[in-house]
C-alpha cells in the first residue's frame, strides 16, 4: 500500500471524525431561547410575506400550519442557488453561485468516481461504449459533472478571491486565513482541471485510485499531475474541518435550530422538559444583581427587589 493511500485513509477518517464531532457538539448543546427570524418558509400561506402563526387569534388552539413542501422548496433554492445572496448581495452572488454550484458538481463527481470504482471492482467496465449501458452512463455523467465542476468552481473561486482582494469592504474584513481558504480550494480545483486535461481525460486513473482505496488493493502507478492533485485534496481534507467552510453543515443548525425554529413550548411537552432541565443549571455570573444558584432561583429572586 502506498503512502498516498495510507494518508488518503487517514484524511478521510480525520475529516469524517472531526466534522462529525463538531456536528455532535452543536447538536448536543442545550435548548436555547427562541430566536426566530422571519420570513419562515414553513408557515403555510404566510411564509411568502413573512407571517407566522402569531397572526391568528388564539393561535395555540389552532392546528399546526407547518408546510414541509414550502420549507423544502426554500431549502432547495438556498442550497442550490444561494438565493439569499442573490437578493442581498448580487455582485458577490455572480461568483458565489458558480463557486458553490461547481463544488456541488464535484461532490457528485466524487460520488460517481466511487460508484465507478466499485463497479469496476465488480468487473463492470466504466468507459465510453462499454458493454454495460450503466457503465457508459456513469462514465459520461462523471465527465459532465467533472467538467462543469472544474470550470464553475475555478471561475467562482477566482472571482471570490479577487473580490476579496480588491473589493474595498471585503478586503477590510479579511485576514490571512480568508485568502488562504480560497487559495487552497483554488489549488485543488486548478490542479484537478490540469490533471484531467493533461493526463486523465476519462478519469480512468482517478477511478482506479478510488477502486484501490475501496478494495484495499495496491494502487497502480499514477501520472504526476494526478498524484499532485490527490495530495492537494488530501491536504484540503485535513484543513477543511477547522475552517468556517464547514458552514455546509453548520447552516443546517443556523436555519433549522435558530432562524426557523418556532415550535411553541407546550405544557408537558419535550421543550418544557428541556427548559426545566436548563432552569436547574447553576450560574455563577458575578454581577451584584444576580443571585447565585440555579437559573430558577436567580429568575425568581423578586422579593429582594420588591422590598428594597
Amino acid at each position: 500500500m502506498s503512502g498516498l493511500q495510507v494518508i488518503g485513509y487517514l484524511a478521510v477518517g480525520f475529516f469524517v471524525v472531526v466534522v462529525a464531532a463538531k456536528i455532535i457538539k452543536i447538536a448536543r448543546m442545550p435548548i436555547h431561547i427562541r430566536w426566530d427570524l422571519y420570513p419562515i418558509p414553513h408557515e403555510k400561506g404566510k411564509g411568502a410575506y413573512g407571517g407566522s402563526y402569531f397572526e391568528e387569534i388564539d393561535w395555540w388552539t389552532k392546528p399546526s400550519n407547518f408546510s414541509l413542501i414550502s420549507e423544502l422548496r426554500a431549502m432547495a433554492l438556498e442550497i442550490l442557488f444561494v438565493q439569499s445572496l442573490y437578493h442581498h448581495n448580487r455582485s458577490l452572488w455572480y461568483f458565489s453561485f458558480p463557486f458553490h454550484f461547481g463544488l456541488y458538481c464535484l461532490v457528485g463527481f466524487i460520488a460517481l468516481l466511487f460508484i465507478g470504482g466499485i463497479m469496476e471492482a465488480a468487473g463492470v467496465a466504466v468507459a465510453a461504449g462499454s458493454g454495460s449501458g450503466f457503465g457508459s452512463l456513469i462514465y459520461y455523467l462523471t465527465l459532465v459533472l467533472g467538467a462543469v465542476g472544474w470550470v464553475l468552481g475555478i471561475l467562482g473561486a477566482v472571482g471570490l478571491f479577487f473580490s476579496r482582494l480588491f473589493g474595498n469592504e471585503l478586503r477590510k474584513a479579511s485576514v490571512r486565513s480568508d485568502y488562504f481558504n480560497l487559495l487552497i480550494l483554488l489549488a485543488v480545483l486548478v490542479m484537478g482541471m490540469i490533471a484531467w486535461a493533461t493526463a486523465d481525460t476519462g478519469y480512468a486513473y482517478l477511478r482506479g485510485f478510488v477502486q484501490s482505496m475501496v478494495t484495499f488493493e495496491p494502487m497502480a502507478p499514477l501520472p504526476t499531475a494526478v498524484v499532485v492533485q490527490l495530495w492537494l485534496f488530501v491536504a484540503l481534507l485535513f484543513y477543511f474541518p477547522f475552517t468556517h467552510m464547514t458552514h455546509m453543515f453548520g447552516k443546517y443548525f443556523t436555519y433549522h435550530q435558530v432562524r426557523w425554529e418556532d415550535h411553541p413550548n407546550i405544557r408537558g411537552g419535550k421543550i418544557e422538559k428541556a427548559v426545566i432541565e436548563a432552569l436547574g443549571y447553576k450560574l455563577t455570573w458575578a454581577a451584584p444583581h444576580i443571585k447565585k444558584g440555579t437559573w430558577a432561583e436567580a429568575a425568581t429572586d423578586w422579593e429582594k427587589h420588591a422590598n428594597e
Partner: protein
Amino acid sequence: MSNKDVTIRDFCRHTGQLVELDPSNFLPLPPPYDKLELQPKFGKLSEANQKKLESDLDGISAFKFPRPQTDDEKRVLVEKFLSGLRKLFDKQENWTFMQPLFLTMEYCAKCQTCATACPIYNESGKLDIYRPTFRSDILRRLYKKYVKTGGKFFAKLSGNDIDASWTMIARLMELSYRCTVCRRCAQSCPIGVDNGLVTRELRKIFSQEMGITIEPLHAKGSMNQLRTGSSTGMSKAPFLDNVEFLEEEVEERTGRKFKWPMDKAGADILLIHNAGEFLAWPENPEAFAIILEAAGINYTLSSDLCAYDGVNYGVWYDDIQFSKVALQHAEVAKRLGVKKIVIGECGHAHKALTVIADRVFTGDYNIPRESSMTLLRDIVKSGRLKLDASRNDDMTTTLHDPCNLVRLMGIVEPQREVLRAVSNHFREMEPHGVNNYCCGGGSGFAITKDLNFPDFRNQISARTKLRQILDVYQDIIGPEHKKYVCAPCSNCKGAMRDMFTAYGLFERCNILYGGLVELVVNAMVDIDKPFIEWEWH
C-alpha cells in the same frame, strides 16, 4: 488615520478617540432635509466629560463609564471581561444563547452581505466601526484566542491575534450600544450568522459579569420595574390615580363613562400596556379601553407589581433580568386566572413575553400570550365596532413596522388589515413588513437620553426611518397636507418623538406619529369629536 479606514488593530491599539463623527459624511436626506443647515447639530462631549468618561470609540458615551485611573483597575476589568467571555460559551452559564452564539462565532464567511442591510453602517457614511462584522470579528478573535483550546497558538498562525486590553474592551463596550439589534443583518446572511445576537451577548458580559450597564436600561429600567412595578418609577397608587384620571379624560373626550376593569379575577384577558403610554401617550390606553369596552371584551388590567408595565428591558442586555420580569408578568396572570395575556402596542414587550419567555415559562406560568394586533383585527373584522374610514380622510397614513412585531415575530398582516379598514389613504413605506427598517430606537436607544447619545440616535440610527417617512410622503411633503405615521410600539414612538423634535418634522412637514388604536377610535362613528388631536405633544 481616516475615519473610514479603521482596522481592528487600530481599534485595539490606537490611543485617544478613534473616530470623529461628521454629519457632512452621513448619507444625504431627501427634501426638505437635503440641506445640511436644516439638520440638527451633532453635539460633542464637554472636555471634562471626555477626560472623565470612556468615549474613545466615537466621542459618544452611552455608558457614562468613568475611565479607570490605575493599571490595576484596568487589569481587573480585563480579567472580569475574559471571565464573562468564557461564561458565554459555558452550557450552564449561558444555555439561553450558547448554541446560536457558537454558530455565529464558527461560520461567518465575512462576505459583508450584512453590511448592505445595516442602516447604521450605511447612514454613517459606511464607517468601519459600525460594520456589523466589525464588532463580531473582535468577539470572534477573542473567543478563538481566549476560549478555544490552543487558541493563543492558532491566533498567531491565522493572523487574527489581538490582545484583550482595556483600551479595546472600553471601545467594545460602547460599540455594543451602536447597534439596535434589529437583526436585518442576520436576515440577509446567507449562512444564518447573527451579528445582532453578538451585540446582545456582548452587553451580557458587561451586565451579567462586570455589573456595567446603561442606567436607563438597568438602574432606572429593569431594577426600577422590579422594585416599584414600572420602569417609569410609577408604583401602584400613582398608577391607579392615573387610570382614574384617564377614565375622566375619556368621558370628556367621548362622552363615554365607564370604569376600566382592574385586577378582575377570572377575566378572559390580562391586557398589559407599556407603562410609558400612561404617562407620555395616554390617548393610547384610552383608545384601547374605548375599543375593548365597545366590543364587549372580558378583560382586565392589573395594578400588581410589573403587571401594569409590559416592558422588559432585559431582552436587550441581561438574561436574568429578562427572566425575572417575564416571570413576574406570568405570576400575576396566573394569580388572576386569566385565559391569556394580550400585549398592548409595544414591540419589545411582544417579543419578550410571547417569543423569548416561551423558553422560560413552565407549568402554570405558561399562560398563552397574544398580540393586541390580532385581537384588534378580530374586533374590527367582526363588525362589533361601527367604523367609517372616511373619518380619517383628512390625513394620509403610513405604517411603521416595529422590528419585534414583524421580523422577529412574523406579525405582519393584522395591523395592516386594521389600518386598511380605518384609513382610505394608507400607503406603505419601502421596504416594509419583515424587511422593514428599525425606528432607530431599538434595543434601548429610545430611552437613552444622556449626553450626546440622542444625537447618534436622531442622526444615524433613526436616519433611515426618517428617510423612509420623507420618501413615502415626498409628493405631499408640504405642511398643507396632514400625514400620520402609525407606529404601534411605545419604544418606536419614543424614538420618533425625539427624531421629529430634532428635525422639526411636525412644524415643517405636518407629520404626526401615533398608535394604531387611536386611528380606530377616530374612525368610530358613534364618537362625535375627532379622537386624534392634531397637535404636537
